[in-house]
């Protein structure tokens, strides 16, 4: 088994044979890294159970999970797609602002707290999904809710005090 994963990026080397019809079709996500990072905590909030299920299935399959866990994998993809779809439908403006800010700031979340605050508020209002960082110390404000970010260099990092 090759240790390095072979990747065939050249146009001509793509094997285009589709999956057989016995496997249900699922559209892939197709989002780039910034929107995914922007939506990651909402994906985690809604799809946590599916995600855990899939990872557990892969762990317990002992190396055969690629084939055996396809069903769980489809659920994971559909759930993530549904979150992105909902955000796109309900909070497109805020979502775009945030991920474009991330793209312009090296994809470092602490530079974009203001757009993130607007996005989080919108998503919480419309979709009831909340950003939660597990394992954060309980006696202090979670880092994404602090008014000032020590390491940020630009003004869009400042949250408006509520």
């Amino acid at each position: 088994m090759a240790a390095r994963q072979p990747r065939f990026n050249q146009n001509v080397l793509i094997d285009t044979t589709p999956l057989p019809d016995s496997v249900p079709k699922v559209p892939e996500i197709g989002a780039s890294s910034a929107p995914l990072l922007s939506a990651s905590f909402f994906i985690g909030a809604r799809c946590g159970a599916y995600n855990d299920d899939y990872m557990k299935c892969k762990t317990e399959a002992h190396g055969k999970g690629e084939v055996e866990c396809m069903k769980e994998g489809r659920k994971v993809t559909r759930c993530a797609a549904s979150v992105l779809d909902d955000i796109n439908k309900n909070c497109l403006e805020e979502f775009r602002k945030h991920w474009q800010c991330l793209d312009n700031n090296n994809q470092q979340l602490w530079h974009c707290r203001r757009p993130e605050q607007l996005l989080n508020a919108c998503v919480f209002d419309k979709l009831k999904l909340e950003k939660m960082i597990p394992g954060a110390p309980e006696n202090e404000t979670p880092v994404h809710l602090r008014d000032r970010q020590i390491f940020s260099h630009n003004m869009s990092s400042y949250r408006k005090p509520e």
Partner: protein
Amino acid sequence: MAQDLPPSGGYEPVQYKRNLPARGFRPSYYLFAMGLICTYGLYKTGKGIREQNELAREKMWARIHLIPMLQAEEDRDLVRRTWADKAREKELMGGESKVYHSDRFVRPTYTITPKNVTK
């Protein structure tokens, strides 16, 4: 000849102390001030480290939430290619051979170049 003796009444005192004024505050004040500055700096550093830890936790969880989705997509693609390879082998060789001495899923290593490359 008379012996050389100290003058009567003794020698005058020798001035060995330099007569310079001591500048500034007492040294202990400087030590104290340095201690204060260092304490402030360490306090700020500690704050920064705490915040960095939290930012790292945030980034880690963002990735943890995304990994299953990315992995699922990748796995689907690998399975698709593996099955395509197997189908091709069956068509060409008339049967399936067991290449690896393992029941595990082995990622496809080779790919097929199309017969007619137009560009």
